C-alpha cells in the first residue's frame, strides 16, 4: 500500500514552502520539506556592486529579517575595511536590531502561532481578533512599537536605509527618543501579558511530550560573555548532549563550519565540521539561543527564564520550546530597546565617521529572529564586491526541520493513514514547521525540486 500526502502550500509561514510525505507498507518512506520561493541569486547579483550599497541591496533577501540583513551586511563591509564606528552608532544599531525582534516575534506569535496554541475555530489572526480582541490589540501595539523603532532609527518601516560603513546616517532626536521610551515601556507591559498567556497555555499542555518532538541536535547562537546576545559577540555551539563544543569569532567561521550539498533538495546544508554531516547540522533560533546561553542580560527576561526552566530543561531538544523561548525573547528585546534608549548618549549627533574603501575580506554574524545569520564578502581595491557567501537561519534549520517532521510522522503514522484523523495529523506537521518560524524567502540558496533520490548520500566539500 502506498500513500502520497502533501501540504502545498504550507500556510501561515513566510515565503512559499511545501511538505511531501510518501508512506509505503505502513512506513514513512520519504518525507521532503522544501521551499518554493524562487531563487533570486543574491550571491550573484551583489557581485561587482559597490560594497557600501550591499546593506540596502541584500536586505531585499527577506521581507521580515530585512533589519538583520541590513546590519550584518554593513558589519561585514566594516570588517573588511577595518572600521570602528562611534559608540552612539553601535547603540542605535543595537536598538534597531532589538526592535526588529519585537516586530518579527510578535508577528509570528500573534498572527501565525497563537491561533494554533489557542486552537481557534478560525485558525488565523482574523479569528484571534474576533475571539480575543484585547489580546489582538496588545499584539498590535507590540508589533507597532517594533515598527516605530525601525522607522525612527532606520529611516523606513520596512527596508531601512541608515546603516552605512562607518556608522549611521541619522541621529535620533530627543523627542523621538522620549516617545520611543514611553511606547517601549507600554510595549514591555503588553509583551509580559503575552508571555504569561503563552506560559499558561504551556503549563496546561506540557504533558503531551510527543506533540512537537525532535532529534538530539547541536545548537548554535551568539553569546556575549556567555549571555544571551542578538547583535554581536561570538558564536557558541553546543553538542547533542549539551556540552559546549566551540566558541569562535566570526572571522574564524571557516574553521568550524562547512556546507554540504544535498542531492535531493539542492539546499546548501551547513554543519559543524568537527561533528561531520549530518550529525553536525546544528539548529538555530530562539530555542537554540536559549540552549547556548548561560543567562539573560535583562532582569524581566531573566525572571521568565526561570519559568521556562520549570517546563523545559536547558538545553532541550523539544521543538515545542521554540514558541515559549520566542515569547520570552520578545521581552528581552523590548528591555534592550529601553536600556539603550535610557542612555543619554543615544541622542548624540556623532553617529558616523567617514571611511575609505580598500581591498579585504569581511565576515559578520548577527542573530536574526529565526537564528544565526552570516554574510561574508570579499571586496577589491575599488570597493567593489567580488565574492559573497550568505548563510541564512532557515538554511541552518532546513535539514533539521525535515528530520523533525519525519520523526513526528513516524510516531503518528496511524493518524496519517486513517482518513478520519489525517487532517489533524497534517495540522500537527504544519505546527512543527511553524514553530521554527522558517523564513522561506530567506533561505538564500535553497531551491525547489521534485527530484527524489532515495537513500542517496550527500556530497560534502570543504570551504576554499
Amino acid at each position, binding site marked *: 500500500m502506498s500513500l502520497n500526502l502533501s501540504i502545498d502550500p504550507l*500556510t*501561515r509561514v*513566510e*515565503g*512559499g514552502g511545501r511538505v511531501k510525505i510518501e508512506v509505503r507498507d505502513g512506513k514513512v518512506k520519504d518525507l521532503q520539506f522544501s521551499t*518554493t*520561493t*524562487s*531563487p*533570486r*541569486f543574491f*550571491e*550573484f*547579483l551583489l*557581485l*561587482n*556592486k*559597490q560594497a*557600501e*550599497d550591499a546593506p540596502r*541591496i541584500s536586505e*531585499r*533577501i*527577506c*521581507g*521580515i529579517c530585512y533589519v538583520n540583513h541590513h546590519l550584518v551586511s554593513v558589519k561585514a563591509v566594516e570588517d573588511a575595511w577595518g572600521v570602528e564606528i562611534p559608540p552612539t552608532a553601535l547603540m542605535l544599531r543595537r536598538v534597531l536590531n532589538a526592535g526588529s525582534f519585537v516586530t518579527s516575534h510578535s*508577528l509570528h506569535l500573534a*498572527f501565525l502561532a497563537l491561533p494554533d496554541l489557542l486552537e481557534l475555530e478560525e*485558525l*488565523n*489572526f*482574523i479569528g484571534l481578533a474576533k475571539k480575543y480582541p484585547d489580546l489582538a490589540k496588545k499584539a*498590535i501595539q507590540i508589533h*507597532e512599537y517594533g*515598527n516605530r523603532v525601525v522607522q525612527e532609527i532606520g*529611516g523606513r*518601516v*520596512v*527596508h531601512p*536605509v*541608515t546603516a552605512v*560603513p562607518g556608522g549611521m*546616517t*541619522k541621529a535620533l532626536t530627543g523627542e523621538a527618543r522620549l516617545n520611543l521610551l514611553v511606547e517601549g515601556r507600554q510595549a514591555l507591559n503588553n509583551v509580559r501579558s503575552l508571555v504569561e498567556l503563552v506560559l499558561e497555555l504551556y503549563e496546561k499542555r506540557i504533558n503531551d511530550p510527543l506533540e512537537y518532538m525532535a532529534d538530539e541536535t547541536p545548537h548554535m547562537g551568539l553569546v556575549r560573555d556567555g549571555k544571551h546576545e542578538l547583535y554581536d559577540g561570538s558564536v557558541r555551539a553546543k553538542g547533542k548532549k549539551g556540552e559546549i563544543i566551540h566558541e569562535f569569532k566570526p572571522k574564524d567561521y571557516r574553521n568550524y563550519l562547512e*556546507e554540504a*550539498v544535498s542531492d535531493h533538495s539542492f539546499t546548501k546544508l551547513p554543519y559543524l565540521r568537527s561533528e561531520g554531516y549530518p550529525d553536525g547540522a546544528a539548529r538555530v533560533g530562539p530555542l537554540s539561543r536559549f540552549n547556548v546561553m548561560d543567562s539573560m542580560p535583562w532582569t524581566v527576561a531573566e525572571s521568565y527564564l526561570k519559568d521556562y526552566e520549570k517546563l523545559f530543561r536547558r538545553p532541550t531538544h523539544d521543538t515545542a520550546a521554540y514558541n515559549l523561548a520566542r515569547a520570552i525573547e520578545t521581552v528581552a528585546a523590548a528591555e534592550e530597546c529601553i536600556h539603550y534608549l535610557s542612555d543619554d548618549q543615544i541622542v548624540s549627533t556623532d553617529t558616523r565617521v*567617514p*571611511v575609505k*574603501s580598500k581591498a579585504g575580506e569581511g565576515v559578520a554574524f548577527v542573530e536574526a529572529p529565526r537564528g544565526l545569520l552570516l554574510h561574508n564578502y570579499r571586496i577589491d581595491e575599488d*570597493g567593489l564586491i567580488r565574492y559573497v*557567501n550568505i548563510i541564512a537561519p532557515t538554511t541552518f534549520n532546513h535539514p533539521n526541520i525535515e528530520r523533525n517532521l519525519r520523526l513526528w510522522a513516524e510516531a503518528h503514522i496511524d493518524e496519517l493513514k486513517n482518513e478520519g484523523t489525517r487532517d489533524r495529523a497534517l495540522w500537527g506537521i504544519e505546527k512543527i514547521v511553524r514553530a521554527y518560524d522558517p523564513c522561506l*524567502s530567506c533561505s538564500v*540558496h535553497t*531551491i*525547489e*525540486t521534485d527530484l527524489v533520490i532515495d537513500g542517496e548520500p550527500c*556530497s560534502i*566539500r570543504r*570551504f*576554499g
Partner: protein
Amino acid sequence: MAKILIAGLAGDSGCQVATLALHEKLLQILSENELVYASTLIDAKQIPEEVDVAIIEGGIRTEHEKHLAEEIRKKSKTVITIGSCACFGGIPGLANLEEGGELLKKVYAELEGTVEGHLPVHDTLTNYVAPVGNVVKVDYSIPGCPPEIDDIAYVLTTLLEGKVPLLSKSDVCDDCKRERLGTYKTAAKRLHESIPDPDRCLLEQGYLCMGPATRGGCGAPCPAAGHTCDGCRGPTEKNDDQGLTMLDALVSLANELGVNLSLPRHSGSIYRYTFASSRIEKLLRERFKI
C-alpha cells in the same frame, strides 16, 4: 463584500509585511470584505474560482510563477501588482545580466564551498526575471520597495469603493526638503567617504541620489534620513526608463560625468529596481542573444 486574494511570487514578502503594518485599518478592510487566499495569513490552499481583487507581490522567475499569475488573472476581476518586484522586476532583476541556466551554474557549482559540477535540476526556472505585467494584464500598480503603507491603504480602499486610484505624478525631489542651490560638484562621491551637509541637496553635493528620476509620493524618507534615494519607486509618470532618465539628468547637471559607466557595477545604482524593465536590458538581450 469583495473577495480579496494576496499572492507572493518572486519577492521577499516585504510588501505583505508592509501591508500588515496597516493593523486596525487592515482588520477593518478584512472584516468588511473576505480574504479568500493569502498563504502567509490564512490556511486556504487553493486559488478560488472567483476573486474580485487580486494583489500580486513579486515578479516572475519560474514557469510555476508564470502559470500562477495566469491562473490568478483568469479568476480575478481586478489585478493589482504591489511593490517594485511585481511592477518592474525589482532587485532580483539585477540578476538579468546572466540567463537562468548560467546563474544556476555560477551559484551552485562555481561559488566557493559548493560541489563542483553538481548542478541542481531546475527545469522551471525562467531565463529572466520579468515584471508581472509582461505576462498578464495588470489593472493597477503600487510601486515601491515596499510601497508606502498609506499608498497601500489608499489604493485598496479607493478600489473597494469602486473608484479609480491615482499615483503621485511628482518626482522624489518634489517631496524632498533638502535645499537646492543650482550649483553642482562634478566628481561623484560615494556615501561612506564623507559626511554630507544635512540640509543641502545630495545630488548637488555629488552623491548619486536618484530623486530626479524616481516617482514621488513617498515623502522622500531616505534623503531625510541622510541617505540617497536609491529609486525604489521606479520611473516617474513622464519617463519609462529610470536609468536613462537619471543619466539625462546627470549630463544636464554637470558637463562632466566623472564616471566610466559599467553595467555590472552601475546597474546597481541607476537601475537597482528596474533593470528587468529597462531598455538597456532589452537591447543587451537582442544584441547578444542572452
